[in-house]
């Protein structure tokens, strides 16, 4: 959809509304449109080939007037990508390949449906035709992600057609900065980046802080393993983030802003850059926005990939061109942040919530969620879950609803064991707490946290000690190394957890882990260190017996820790089929002839479990 277009700068709210009307008028709501997810998830699954095939097919058939094509950001159902939706009917085709395109196009033109590409609900066995009826979407409340399918993120006109920048126009011409802060305060919005700090209180402190220049920052340095909420918002609907920043800037009195986005998110960087350029062309960014006299400019800064740069003071150091290391926050960044000036930093998702609050009112927003946590939250649901993807749910929904109703439960009929929320420094929540309502305070209460919204599901085959070791290893690698408790403490925690998983755990190791945890919490310089013990403390709190089994009985109950596992052949069950002989990568299993049980050489066995996985007859025993 590349076209040269002469853009007229908008000089008033009326001109914005007139433009919006003309865009809406020029579009036929009944026009069939093929919507393809061009988010990073679907691209990884081959969406680019599908997009190319659709382009070619439409061109070949001269169907441009009958069939529009829109490449969008992520709608969330990554498990079933590449995703194609036919609008306006909302017919969902899943796991589409380029070979399917000819059939989809010819069926769509005739008004037919390609039955074989529809989603089948595994629970009922029924085919689901329309996207909103898919159970994965049914329980969600997609205030932020919902528009992703209706917007080509490289076209500001799509965002404008849906009422985009109307909230900005409203605050610039109908509200005072204090009025905006009051409205956001009334909405109850809390920061989505991890801490859950009340957004309006932060804005107010920054507005009131003494200083000449106030900086506005959008933190898109999402680094949690398995988390991609911010990426998907920035890729799919960058203007909603920009509009939020503009409204915040007006409320705070800032005229310069930065979007700090990790360089590993090339599509998010690209779409943010396009969005900034288009908003500037329309006069929605830059000098004298919409003729209001208000100026705000945004620069995009790419992060170098250090996890710690998601921490606000490290991020600001990085923006200044220094090494991304945190500093103590006894003087808050709202008073002295970037270049020692008052600075307001919010996360991508927080900013994207702001236009909704202004547009629909704080009362509407405050009705969604729980007493202490308002609105929706996007989670990236990953791990041992049937429906991997992005889900947006109202605060207060239970973990059970997210995991079973939306996520479709655990694959292969396995048993749920724990869910880790809040990224690497979050905590593991056990099955007994599945009915926990998900909000900032409830997650804190059980020793975990909301974090930025990662949700990793684990099944019965996960060893909780090994999980704790994995996250501590990750954090050890990402510690900046400045302060002793974090650098030296995480190294020691990692050593202790490693020796426990290797069967070399000692009496007193649990106590030592707890003492180390207390020091990391109390004395670390920044939140990376002070929250790092969470995976250890929550697994100790809820799965202490697994630690004890490793240390005392030298046994890994989940059968994960190699040094504590032995594989044996059940001679009565083994028919000598030889599947395991082929599967073994180190030739540790020898065939003794047909109908004779195979022999496993324990000396050679590397305990990879390939024989166990491949045997259909339960003839390989894991002890």
């Amino acid at each position, binding site marked *: 959809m590349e076209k040269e277009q002469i853009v007229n700068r908008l000089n008033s709210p009326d001109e914005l509304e007139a433009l919006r009307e003309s865009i809406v008028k020029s579009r036929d709501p009944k026009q069939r449109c093929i919507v393809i997810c061009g988010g990073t998830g679907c691209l990884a699954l081959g969406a680019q080939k599908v997009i190319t095939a659709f382009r070619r097919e439409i061109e070949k058939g001269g169907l441009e007037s009958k069939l529009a094509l829109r490449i969008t950001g992520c709608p969330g159902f990554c498990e079933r990508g590449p995703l194609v939706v036919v609008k306006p009917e909302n017919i969902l085709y899943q796991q589409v390949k380029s070979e399917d395109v000819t059939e989809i196009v010819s069926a769509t033109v005739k008004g037919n449906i390609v039955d074989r590409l529809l989603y089948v609900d595994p629970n009922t066995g029924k085919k689901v035709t329309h996207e909103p009826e898919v159970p994965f979407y049914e329980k969600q409340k997609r205030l932020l992600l919902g528009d992703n399918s209706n917007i080509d993120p490289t076209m500001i006109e799509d965002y404008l057609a849906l009422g985009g920048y109307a909230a900005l126009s409203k605050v610039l011409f109908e509200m005072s900065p204090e009025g905006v802060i009051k409205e956001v305060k009334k909405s109850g919005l809390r920061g989505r980046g991890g801490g859950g700090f009340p957004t309006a209180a932060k804005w107010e402190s920054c507005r009131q802080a003494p200083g000449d220049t106030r900086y506005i920052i959008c933190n898109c340095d999402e680094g949690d393993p398995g988390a991609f909420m911010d990426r998907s918002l920035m890729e799919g609907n960058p203007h909603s983030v920009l509009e939020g920043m503009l409204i915040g800037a007006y409320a705070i009195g800032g005229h310069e802003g930065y979007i700090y986005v990790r360089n590993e998110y090339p599509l998010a960087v690209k779409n943010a850059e396009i969005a900034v350029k288009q908003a500037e062309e329309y006069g929605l960014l830059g000098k004298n926005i919409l003729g209001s006299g208000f100026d705000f400019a945004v620069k995009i800064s790419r992060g170098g990939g250090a996890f710690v740069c998601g921490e606000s003071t490290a991020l600001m150091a990085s923006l200044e061109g220094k090494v991304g290391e945190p500093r*103590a926050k*006894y003087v808050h960044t709202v008073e002295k942040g970037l270049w020692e000036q008052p600075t307001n930093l919010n996360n991508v998702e927080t900013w994207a919530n702001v236009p909704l609050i202004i547009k629909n009112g704080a009362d509407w927003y405050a009705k969604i969620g729980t007493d202490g946590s308002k609105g929706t939250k996007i989670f990236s649901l990953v791990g041992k879950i049937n429906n991997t993807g992005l889900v947006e749910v109202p605060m207060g929904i239970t973990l059970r609803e997210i995991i079973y109703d939306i996520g479709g439960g655990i694959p292969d009929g396995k048993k749920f064991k724990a869910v880790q929320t809040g990224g690497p420094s979050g905590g593991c929540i056990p099955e007994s707490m599945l009915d926990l309502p998900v909000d900032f305070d409830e997650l804190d209460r059980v020793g975990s946290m909301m974090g930025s919204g990662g949700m990793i599901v684990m099944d019965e085959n996960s060893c909780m000690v090994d999980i704790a070791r994995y996250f501590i290893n990750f954090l050890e690698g990402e510690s900046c190394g*400045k302060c*002793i408790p974090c650098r*030296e403490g995480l190294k020691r925690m990692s050593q202790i957890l490693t020796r426990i998983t290797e069967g070399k755990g000692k009496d007193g190791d649990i106590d030592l882990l707890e003492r180390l945890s*207390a020091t990391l919490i109390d*004395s670390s310089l920044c939140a990376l260190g002070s929250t790092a013990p969470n995976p250890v403390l929550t697994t100790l709190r809820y799965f202490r017996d697994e630690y004890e089994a490793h240390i005392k009985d030298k046994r890994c109950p989940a059968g994960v820790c190699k040094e504590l596992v032995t594989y044996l052949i059940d001679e009565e069950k083994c028919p000598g089929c030889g599947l395991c002989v082929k599967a073994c990568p180190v030739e540790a299993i020898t065939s003794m002839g047909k109908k004779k049980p195979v022999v496993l050489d324990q000396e050679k066995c590397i305990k990879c479990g390939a024989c166990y996985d491949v045997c259909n007859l339960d003839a390989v025993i894991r002890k």
Partner: protein
Amino acid sequence: MVTLTIDGRKVQAEEGATILEVAEDNNIYIPTLCSNEAVKPYGACRLCLVEVTRGKRERLVASCLYEVEEGLVVKTNSERVASNRRMLMELLLARCPNNKKIQDLAHRLGVDGTSFELEDKQCILCALCVRTCAEVVGVSAISLVGRGTGRAMATPFYEPSDVCIGCGSCAYVCPTGAISFEDVGDTRYIKWPKNGMEFKLKKCKTCGRYWAPEKQLDYIIKKVNLAPDAFDNCPDCRD
């Protein structure tokens, strides 16, 4: 001036002073390894943690960074503070088990052994050398390299530095003696934990002894605009 309470004693302090400075002025001991009045506070060693109460909120803060406030109540050695310090010393003792300075401080804080596997390092990465080189000397010849547990103090790429003047401030300020320098004949040898450099010493025109690195003297001549022959004689032989 503000009034605060440290360990039950009411003390007066200048606004903007840190708790650590005020405690030192009042002869109240707070251990620290990474602070030095010559450079800006950094907050890395965490040994100077103290417990502060403001209103109902009690928390641990790094006293080298936390500025005094009116009515602040500070405890420099509560059980919570002490137990954190003991764990920090255990961690340091495991990193540098053979370092006398660390052993002595550990002993003073009640720690005579460590629960962790022993390493054999001398440097605790407090960055005093790096900060002194940047803030006081003004050359930034050394820096911290790498991140996290792989971090080290070195010259860029571990190669001889073009800008190092051999002044030895890094060795002087090092709290653990991890950096050393020695003048042998006409040469100064500086040894950092990962690499080292040699510097030619200047010979005194009068007494003939080698008394300072030539690079350092050139640097001073340039910086304060002295005559080129200002350092031809050593301090003892100057008029």
